[in-house]
């Protein structure tokens, strides 16, 4: 029983990180139908920002996690900058395919730019302790504070984000743009502003994901984004890309499957099973678990 609970906890903590990253993919996809491959690299940007600001934050007498505020700001700026400089011009002139290639280029550009900055360089860095070390025991299962905090914060952020898109004017505008850009324009919604806002929120989430990731797995390197990005992207597609609750569900499904495969089947099959689940789900429900099969209007 204790193995079972431990496995669930590990699955939830992997899943909460995947879910936070998947949210970023899904938000951008939902609004401009672009798979933002650079999203994983925004996490890397956030991670390094946290590493560099933690000493500063500690010097100010604040707890280490406050560095996430700087990371949120930097990531939001990088996200908005990417949209304005790279994606928007390409979207205006090119096709969906050229936008996709731009996203890949942006991802490789960010990774290589980071390597070229002397303070970052190509060698991995180890992050400081971010949350209180230690944990508590219930029965024979250890609950680390970091793990509990990660799961709670992820859950809170997801609920807030969901409420934001459902209840606020800006959130409604986002959903309108996502459904029909020209109709949204006719209704007086500034489409470009809404898209930029989406990028800002999506990238800010990447900064929070970076904090959560580093608290658990304290090593960061420039190609971190591509490693994490694949699983998060799978989560987003599994849950139904473009649908916010779907990304969260997908993230937890991937995390739990990974953890349970490791514990009960074979630890070296963890990745194979995750991708197998993706294929099976897509065969049965091509739009993802929460996706709706919308027939094409003729």
């Amino acid at each position, binding site marked *: 029983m204790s193995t079972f609970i431990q496995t669930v906890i590990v699955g939830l903590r992997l899943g909460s990180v995947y879910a936070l990253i998947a949210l970023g993919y899904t938000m951008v996809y939902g609004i401009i139908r672009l798979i933002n491959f650079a999203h994983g690299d925004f996490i890397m940007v956030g991670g390094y920002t946290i590493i560099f600001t933690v000493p500063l934050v500690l010097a100010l007498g604040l707890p280490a996690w406050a560095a996430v505020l700087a990371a949120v700001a930097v990531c939001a700026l990088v996200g908005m900058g990417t949209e304005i400089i790279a994606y928007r011009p390409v979207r205006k002139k090119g096709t969906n395919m050229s936008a996709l290639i731009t996203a890949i280029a942006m991802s490789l550009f960010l990774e290589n730019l980071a390597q070229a900055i002397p303070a970052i360089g190509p060698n*991995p860095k180890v992050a400081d302790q971010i949350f209180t070390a230690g944990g508590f025991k219930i029965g*024979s299962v250890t609950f680390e504070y970091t793990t509990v905090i990660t799961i709670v914060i992820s859950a809170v952020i997801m609920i807030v984000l969901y409420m934001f898109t459902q209840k606020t004017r800006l959130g409604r505008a986002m959903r309108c743009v996502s459904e029909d850009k020209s109709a949204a324009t006719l209704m007086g919604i500034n489409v470009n502003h809404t898209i930029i806002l989406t990028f800002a929120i999506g990238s800010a989430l990447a900064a929070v994901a970076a904090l959560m990731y580093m608290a658990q797995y304290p090593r960061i390197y420039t190609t971190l984004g591509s490693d994490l990005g*694949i699983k998060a992207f799978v989560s987003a597609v599994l849950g139904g890309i473009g649908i916010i609750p779907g990304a969260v569900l997908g993230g937890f499904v991937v995390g739990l499957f990974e953890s349970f495969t490791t514990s009960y089947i074979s630890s070296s099959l963890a990745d194979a099973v995750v991708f197998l689940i993706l294929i099976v789900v897509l065969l049965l429900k091509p739009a993802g678990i929460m996706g709706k099969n919308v027939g094409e209007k003729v």
Partner: protein
Amino acid sequence: MKKLFCLLLALCMVLSLAACGGSASSGSSAPAADSGEEAPASAASGDTLKIGVISPNTGNLAAYGTGIHTGAELAVEEINAAGGILGQQVELVELDDRADPTECLNAFNNLVSQGIGLIIGSATSGATSAITGPANEEEVVIIAPTATADSITTEDDYIFRVCYADSAQGAIAAAYAKTAGFDKVGIVYCAGDVYSSGLKDSFSAACAEQGIEVVATESSAALTTTEYTNQFTAMVNAGVDFVYAPYYYDVIGPYVIPQARAAGYDGVIMGADGYDTTPDYVREADAPAFNNIYWTNHYFAGDTSEKVTSFVAAYKDKFGSEPSAFGATGYDSVYVYKAAIEAAGSADPAAVRDALADTSTVYECVSGTFSFDVSGTPVKGAPVITFKDNGDGTIGMELVDVVEASDLA
């Protein structure tokens, strides 16, 4: 994501084609040049004797590459100051492989196209295994500083190394478990890596010989895996107090050991030479987890033999830090080349290979005094080292035991 893979694959193909083109052209000019052009080419480049170095200088295992190329540079500086090899000054041509097999092959082709026939490299078995075949085809000598997988060297080939093979390393770990009184052990290893799975195989084989029972074996899928909690929970459930976990420092420091301790596993964790440089990759708060950890290495920096103390002093003098085992093996690789070139009387790769293949030659190196076996792997022992928490957020190292080659036979 598929698109990304396609793009990357296409890029790799273009690069490898370019690389093949390079070696093919040098290959096709070789027959005509066998007697004529090649000799002047080495004479033209040639007031200096060029040795290629391939090591992971950047990327996740950069600490290994840094060690190897700084160690080699130190050796070359000493040799040149003392008049060079056969009167020629030595020059190193250093390339980076990021511990990636494809990059390693590209670097190899690059060196071959420059007419370099003596190469030191690379750090990891995975990367090195990509160039052993081509090296035999091109008749280029390779001395691997730290590629320990058993399959790297074979009889009658151009591949040598200055480190022991994993079968020896696994046997030392099993012998250590036996003397420490463990008769039930567990293994956690990476199924997707040559080095880690090779060590797992040799350790389990040695355990069977020693009469130690392996009661639990768990694995991780890839070197990028970050989560090891479930694997160590399984170890706790299996009731073992000794786990063999052959990984590299970049996952040992931040992930494996802190997570193992958090999962409630307090027993011995034993590893191999991949644990070297781990203390630089540990969070301060995790330092208390680093007790009861043992590993086999190529040399111990605190060794009091004259060879080691003078090397450590010279290295500290030049680079300002204590040399890792990779520094020692990089340094040794250059000196083994020097001995072989002097024995052969020329730097011609085939002659150097024949000199190295002489199993009676004894090399006195920082990483031990040894001679090669028929495959080109040294017969030597290893120090067993332990980490200890210094209590101030840093981690120290202590020598536990030195296992001699004769102890294993």
